[in-house]
């Protein structure tokens, strides 16, 4: 596993964070717009050791929690799990294929939503089912498409050496 910190990786991650706030509001309904920060987090996790990825996920999650303070900690928990599992499993499940990597991002996005929804405990019954089976799936698919576009454009910048 290569060490994270390559300048090009950081440029790509920074660009994704900027896109999240600058482009995402213009991409239609918020409920299924792609989550560029999650793409950045998963790509960072794939380039890092699981412990570092977990810390990164926790930091991103806490910042995310600041926008929804009634369930403070739920996003931190969700992002920590998603980042840790992304780092830990990518060597096993992710082949040298951008489509598989994009699907991996979609899985992380959906897992993040599941954990966050359950931890926040603000949705229940059909609302929870509808959120996780429809909106979260659509958002995960949109996030995967964003990851796919990024990988097709700058694959060599963001994937660990073993997958380039």
């Amino acid at each position, binding site marked *: 596993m290569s060490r994270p910190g390559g300048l090009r990786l950081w440029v790509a991650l920074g660009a994704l964070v900027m896109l999240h706030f600058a482009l995402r509001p*213009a991409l239609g309904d*918020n409920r299924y717009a792609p989550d560029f920060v999650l793409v950045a987090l998963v790509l960072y996790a794939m380039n890092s050791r699981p412990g570092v990825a977990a810390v990164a996920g926790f930091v991103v*999650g806490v910042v995310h929690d600041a926008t929804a303070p009634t369930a403070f900690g739920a996003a931190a*928990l969700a992002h920590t799990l998603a980042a840790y599992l992304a780092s830990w499993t990518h060597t096993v499940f992710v082949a040298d294929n951008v489509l598989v990597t994009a699907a991996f991002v979609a899985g992380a996005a959906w897992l993040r939503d599941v954990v966050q929804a359950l931890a926040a405990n603000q949705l229940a019954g059909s609302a929870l089912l509808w959120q996780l089976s429809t909106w979260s799936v659509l958002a995960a698919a949109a996030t995967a498409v964003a990851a796919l576009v990024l990988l097709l454009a700058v694959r060599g910048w963001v994937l660990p050496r073993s997958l380039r």
Partner: protein
Amino acid sequence: MARAGTERFRTRADTAAFVACLALSLGALALPESLSSPLASGIRETVLAPFLALQREVVRFAEHRERLDRLRAERDSLALATSRLRETEAENERLRALLGLGARIGVGFVAGEVLHQTGVSDGQTLVLGLGRREGVRQLAPVVTPEGLVGTVLTVDERTSVALAWTHPEFRASAMVDESRIYGIVAARRGARAGEVMELRGIPYRSEVPEGTVVVTSGLGGVFPRGIPIGTVQGVLSESEGWERTYLLRPAVHPAAITHVMVLLTHEPGADLRPRFADTLGDSAVASPRRPGPGVP
């Protein structure tokens, strides 16, 4: 041998970091609001501030572009089709409602953007591009031209967080328009987010027909009287001889809105029903209790 030892140490360190992050997350979940709220506010005002400012500018830019397009379309329509003056007037009214926003409310409000975030909590809490600088204060009512959105939960210098009516902790004192039937409105837990709400605690003797508009009652001191909340869709449940709970179709879907108005001041006893006359009139089309628009 040394490499294997180093790798084993790293693996343990990874696990320790993961467990520590999980523990911190669970600790954050257990924090009382008196601690988590200032912490969240601090993050919004420091780390997130430039990003939220960027998002606000992008939303404003998009709004200006949309407004320009609409105004151009409106100008072209007026120039080309004077025979369709009535339709144009109706369109103009709609645009005024969308763009002018505050014209109906008058003084004591500030309009701003909703900065939607990712995740499942968006729509239950909303980040607003308005803060202390604009005069926003905690518990200020948040509305759109169509009706009630929620109330301000926390206020930062340039942003604030609103608790939308879809949040399970939200409650509003409500009354049936044009009557003295009072109840409490809350989101229907378990229903799809933003789709329906409940009107609870209506005395059994008071029947509320389907299509009746429900507005804020003005009791409790948070919301002024007369902000449309929703329209009665039917009886949800009843405790025999005691009370009924009604299902309401909300006036506003928080997850779908892009702009809101935060009411800064309202006189005690103020009644905003005349300000929301269009919405109340539209809703009243289905109501047997009120005449529709244009009906004397």
